[in-house]
């Protein structure tokens, strides 16, 4: 999952930092199938590409290969997700196709009070996400 780096200045400007501390919560996750890949900005790009390639190719004799994989990217990682999908396509000599979907993910920011008298607050922030389906087509 991408590091959800929003420009902090916007949030902090509205709040008194003396009274609240901002804590970002993890995005809501759905259970993962084996062919779901969440792209992040921390792991090496090549490693993530290789992982996708491996999933598509399967084992030594082509067993356990997935006919389609889903690459998810959130926020900053959207670029990278697209990049991975395109690289996969380019390296497949036309046997792979991509289909992209975009969505909006609601993220929760927790505001922890610094004084006893205040209640903790939560805010919802939206972030864009991309879900790319990479699938095999029969070569003609």
């Amino acid at each position, binding site marked *: 999952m991408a*590091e959800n*780096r929003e*420009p*902090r*200045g916007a949030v902090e400007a509205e709040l008194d930092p003396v009274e609240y*501390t901002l*804590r*970002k*919560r*993890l995005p*809501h*996750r*759905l*259970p993962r199938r084996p062919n779901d890949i969440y792209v992040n900005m*921390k792991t090496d790009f090549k490693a993530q590409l290789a992982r996708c390639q491996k999933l598509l190719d399967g084992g030594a004799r082509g067993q356990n290969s997935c006919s389609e994989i889903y690459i998810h990217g959130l926020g900053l990682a959207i670029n990278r997700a697209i990049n991975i999908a395109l690289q996969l396509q380019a390296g497949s000599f036309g046997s792979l196709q991509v289909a992209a979907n975009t969505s909006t993910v*609601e993220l*929760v920011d*927790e505001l922890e*009070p*610094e*004084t*006893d*008298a*205040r*209640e*903790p607050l*939560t805010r*919802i922030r939206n972030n864009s996400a991309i879900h790319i389906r990479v699938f095999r087509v029969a070569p003609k």
Partner: protein
Amino acid sequence: MSNAKERKHAKKMRNQPTNVTLSSGFVADRGTKYHNGGGRHFHQAQKQEPFPGTSRQRQTKMTHHSPVDPDVKEQSSSKIMFKKKGGWKAGPEGMSQEIPKYITASTFAQARAAEISAMLKAVTQKSSNSLVFQTLPRHMRRRAMSHNVKRLPRRLREIAQKEAEKAVHQKKEHSKNKCHKARRCHKNRVLEFNRRQKKNIWLETHIWHAKRFHMVKKWGYCLGERPTVKSHRACYRAMTNRCLLQDLSYYCCLELKGKEEEILKALSPMCSIDAGLTFAAVHCLSGKCQGSVLLYRANRYPREMLGPVTFIWKSERTPSHTSESRQLWIWLHPMLKQDILEELKAACQCVEPIKPTICTPGPLLTTSEEKSQTELPDEKIGKKRKRKDDGENAKPVKKVIGDGTRDPHQPSSWISAATGIIISDLTMEMNRLRLIGPLSHSILTEALKAASVQTVREGEDTEKTPHHWWIETCKNPDSVSLHHRQEAIFELLGGITSPAEIPSGTILGLTVGDPRINLPPKRSKVLPNPEKCQDNEKVRQLLLEGVPVDCAHSFIWNQAICKNVTENKISDQDLNRRRSELLVPGSQLVLGPQESKIPILLIQQPGKVTGDDRRGWGSGWDILFPKGWGMAFWIPFIYRGARVGGLKESVMHSQYKRSPDIPGDFPDCPAGVVFAEEQAKNLLEKYKRRPPAKRPNYVKLGTLAPFCCPWEQLAQEWESRVQAQEEPSVASSPSGEDSDSRRDKLPCAPTPENTDLWSDEGGTSLSSCSEPREAMDTECPARVGTEWVACQDATGSLLCVLRSRKWLKQLSTWCGPSSRDKRAARRASGSGEPAPTRAACLPLLERFPRALVWVSLALLRKGSPEPHSMICVPTEEDFLRLRQDQLYCGPQESKHSDPFKSEIRKQKERKKVEKRQNKQAPTEREGLAGGPPAAGHQALTLGLWSGPLPGVTSHCSRVLLGFVTQGDFSMAVGGGEALGFVSLTGLLDMLSTQPAAERGLVLLRAPASPQYRFARIAVEV
């Protein structure tokens, strides 16, 4: 006969007793005295008989004439026999002394008979301490002779038989006086277990743990330290991807009951808003959330820390009664309990103990058992006794539930007349299990099912049924609707994939059915159910707002109900019997109204909350339920695929969360000091067990304190160091350029000679110090004037750890590197905090002259740090080389000289001399033994610094900043990570002098290595 032969014989006979001598063949005529049984000497030479003897002998001969002949005959025959064997001969000197003329037959025969019987006895009775077959010569021994008598020669069999019987008999006496089968019988086993848990408290899962874990006795409990299987990595994976289960029932719970204002008023001096939220935080006070707080001695913040605790307020069911009696549970580590309980009692003025019968049902339960236990061993245990015993104790022996070590007469609750607050100690009255990891939701929702609402049929007496409290509850429609709402929320949890998504510290109360009933037939692994994961409005609301306040209500707060639930538990045996009676094997067991209803409390534990990466790692749920139900909840969780961790895993958990471990990482609280001392002792023992050549020589490596960290001394030295620095730098500008020249001037500021000068004055101010060990090491360099000591007295010289959130935030921005994170740099430049200037730090330093800061360190390149590693300040040259060489690992510490080596050698020699002297004159030993220790020589250990430590900061080539308390290769980060404390003064000094690009870089050195490695320091709030 040659002279040489005679001499040889004399040599041979030297050690023989004078009256019995073995003669060899050549001394046939030399003869020796033979002592006969009658006390007279008789002589074989018959020829001498006719010669006149003494008058007395003649008289005896006269009186007893007749029996002479047989005697003589016998004598002659014996003489022949002896002669044949080259045997006994009368010596010539005996001949001259007394020669019996005749011998009385009866007395002589009596004497012989006694002799013969003695000899026979000696033959049959072996004198040596060995077994019969051991006396056999080696070539006659056979395998398994000790087991099989028939392998022995026939003449020895009888003796061996006797021996074997004796051995069996002896063994029986040593053993448990019962056969294996009897010992395994349930009743005896329970008795035995009850006896064994009198000294150390057993958790309810003890037997389960003891089969699978390395057990340790710690803090008065028997706890599983680590699994016997190799599972370090597996436990990490369980925490990250699956679920790790821990039994935290050893945590202590203190209950405060009373008016809200009174409790808050009493507790407010013990915590400070400066160090985080207190007991009065709004969301905690309502009972919606668990809070955590750092406790100090009343009004002593920031010094005299007592320890970190978590607390839960009981939620009010109706918000109108605010001033009504409220309940507060404080959960704490058992090591902190003694101090905190005393302080709480003092703060609430609770002095009057309440009779334990009123508040805690636990001791009552144990008293009857203890009686039956103590009766048993006093009396003889035979068959008769056993039967009688069975008759007496017709009712089955009860297992100890809860605290088996507690003295029933010791009060466990106290009341205050002035404030009306009741403090009770609820230790071991509840079980606490912790589930860590994303699968904990699935496991919880799979294993636990909310209790079914029970309706009463007409004419049934509710008082008599075991679970009448639940029936009573179900009569109230409000309670039923609350129960349904709680159930709905609990079911929603199953659709949330990680506990980190829920607001931290959320509390959910629930009443569940017996978890043993829907136990899967085999151990399996649950997987999150995708069908449940529907993204609907309810889930969203739960994630945003958490559990509503009224759903936090649970019957576990009610002592009477808890007691009822504990007592009315259906035993496993009963449950299994009913299960076997089912018509279709394996079908669902329906107990109906007899099924127990257990009130539980679920508390969300936030995972990693500080820092930027891996947020929410290690989050999970704690589940509280009444005592007695430990195994009933434990097994269902394991059958759903939870992996169990021990103490080691909880240390790993806190390390990867980068949170301080209790009590090891609280050097300013008494429990932390005790812990450090114990650890140092263990490490020292371990170190001494190795031969000197096979262990690191810490003196040569320049490691002064490899086993314990001298925090006090470190903080003090840094304080004096900076003060000494300031004096010359007042005139010049406090910029970073001249720092190196300044540092070069005082690499050896405190010298050991100064120690003694100031120890007296320092000692008086430190007499109230909680660390007597470190008070010894107090030293103030001579440069610092007396007025400094005086002002130090005023501020209080005790060590403290910086826990003020405001300052920690400030520090964390100062520490942050400006080059790595662009956004952080922009922020830093925007807010105008490029570097900590002296002016900015001054208020902080004035308030906390001797403070430590909790920091986390991430290694830049290679290396995995160890506990007690040293955190040092890099020099300008190190940075230069780091910039030039991408692969530069770090500088090396040069070898130090060992000033103790010659002393140790001298001591050894002295010891040798002493030993020799002792050998010669053992009487002198006392005088000598008192000598050397009195001269002031403790036993020196090769490779360890002895005596008071010299200046710790400037002992090595790089200036010491602090120590690592936890450090390892972190599987979460994929590199070395360490946590530790540094001196606040030192940290600020270092940060102010470092260039912006390399700010926050330090050097780490393991105690047994000369290699320094680069690490980045970070203060996380």
